[in-house]
């Protein structure tokens, strides 16, 4: 189980967004770290199949994304950077709609929804319209939605951006717990360095190229630096990430 990309390249017109990106992600918490414009979102878009690969291959759970998209999507959960909830519908209606898109019967979906929402302390908001929720709650609903169909690959694109500290901690610890309990491959895309732990698999991307990929503590050792901040600065020569 996991994600493997081989020589993935992508251009917007003449601008090269990704250049020969080769990755191998297994079950566990994988962090994709990079400054703005590094190619994180492009990579995310390619991994979710929203953008078609021009060059290179993507295999998810040992299936070629180009050939077996349906099989892959059935086991992939995604949280996009931009909110994709329907504001005029309730939390329940949003989640049931997503479950339906995966062909899950409403009764079965409701069992999953109630369980996930209770873990995310959102049970009481089940019938509330999404419009009435704050940013942190909306984000939690999106995470709940990505988990309804019990995926074994979970992609989150800057899932904590714009949230207060409490919401950020709750979300990241929930996803980490999920990783520990279940055999699931998580790709956590971020530009926030304080979200990286020493045991995480870290991928640093800059200017469309992978700068390093290994366990973050190993990378610190390898580059002879004290912490992620120094590692990041050494590899990207930028101070943009926080």
């Amino acid at each position: 189980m996991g994600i493997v990309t081989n020589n993935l390249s992508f251009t917007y017109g003449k601008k090269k967004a990704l250049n020969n990106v080769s990755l191998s992600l297994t079950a566990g918490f994988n962090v994709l770290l990079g400054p703005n414009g590094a190619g994180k979102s492009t990579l995310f878009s390619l991994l979710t199949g929203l953008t078609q690969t021009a060059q290179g291959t993507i295999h998810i759970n040992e299936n070629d994304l180009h050939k077996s998209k349906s099989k892959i999507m059935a086991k992939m959960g995604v949280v996009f950077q931009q909110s994709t909830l329907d504001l005029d519908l309730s939390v329940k209606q949003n989640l049931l709609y997503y479950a339906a898109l995966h062909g899950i019967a409403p009764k079965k979906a409701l069992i999953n929804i109630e369980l996930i929402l209770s873990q995310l302390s959102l049970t009481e908001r089940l019938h509330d319209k999404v419009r009435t929720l704050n940013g942190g709650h909306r984000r939690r609903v999106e995470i709940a939605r990505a988990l309804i169909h019990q995926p074994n690959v979970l992609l989150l694109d800057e899932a904590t951006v714009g949230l207060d500290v409490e919401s950020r901690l709750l979300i990241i610890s929930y996803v980490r717990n999920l990783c520990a309990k279940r055999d699931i491959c998580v790709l956590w895309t971020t530009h926030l360095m304080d979200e990286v732990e020493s045991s995480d698999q870290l991928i640093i991307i800059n200017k469309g190229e992978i700068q390093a990929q290994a366990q973050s503590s190993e990378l610190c050792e390898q580059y002879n630096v004290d912490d992620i901040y120094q590692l990041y600065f050494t590899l990207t020569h930028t101070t943009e990430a926080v």
Partner: protein
Amino acid sequence: MTLNHYFFCCLGIIKREIFRFFQQRSRLFSALVRPLLWLIVFAAGFRAALGVSIMEPYGTYITYQEYIIPGLCCMIVLFNGMQSSLSMVYDREMGSMKVLLMSPLPLPFLLCCKLIAISFLSLMQVYVFLLCAQLVDVDISLFGYLTAAPAIFLIAFFLGALGLLLSSLIKQLENFAGVMNFVIFPMFFLSSALYPLWKMQEASLWIYWLCQYNPFTYCVELLRFALFGQLNLTAFIVILSATVLTAVLALISFSPKFSQQR
């Protein structure tokens, strides 16, 4: 994926459209007010000025109100089809479209479900309008109500697919409003919705030919006959062909490869 998956998916998409429709109560209100104004105010004024002689499928002279009923029903369907497609542009701008694209079920199937949902909503609105029309002495038999349903559904599917095709070609919501002016009004006015084509032929031959080539004319005629329990075969064939063609083009235009190329 089994048949059950497809069934629950289709049901979910239809439910979502219904929920959304009832969340926007003003949409139902405006969908009814528009044709009712035409029926009660416009048609009342023209009733005295215009007489409609005996023509198929009517067995006798009819009032102008009675004549424009099928056109107004199609007007509801046209507006609903375009408005639902507008929501696709909104979904794309807001990002909700990504959710649809993340489904493991094939995109053409998902879009067809969306069209079924749009058609179902159109059908419901037309029936509410027809019930309101009874108040101004427009009589439709129970049989007419029944035979109109498949015709309305087919017309709604066609106009929904047309809207879907347009929404795939439009990048911003602002542009959509402009395109509507170039689609809704010409389609509606250059048809047999408000006046019989033989009257138009007497007035202007080139406009008459434009009306003849307008598929909306055939939508109106299909429904006009269906309300009398009859099938206008020419209109049926034209609309069926137009539906297949438009739906195929809409599905192609929504494929990721095509979207990316644009």
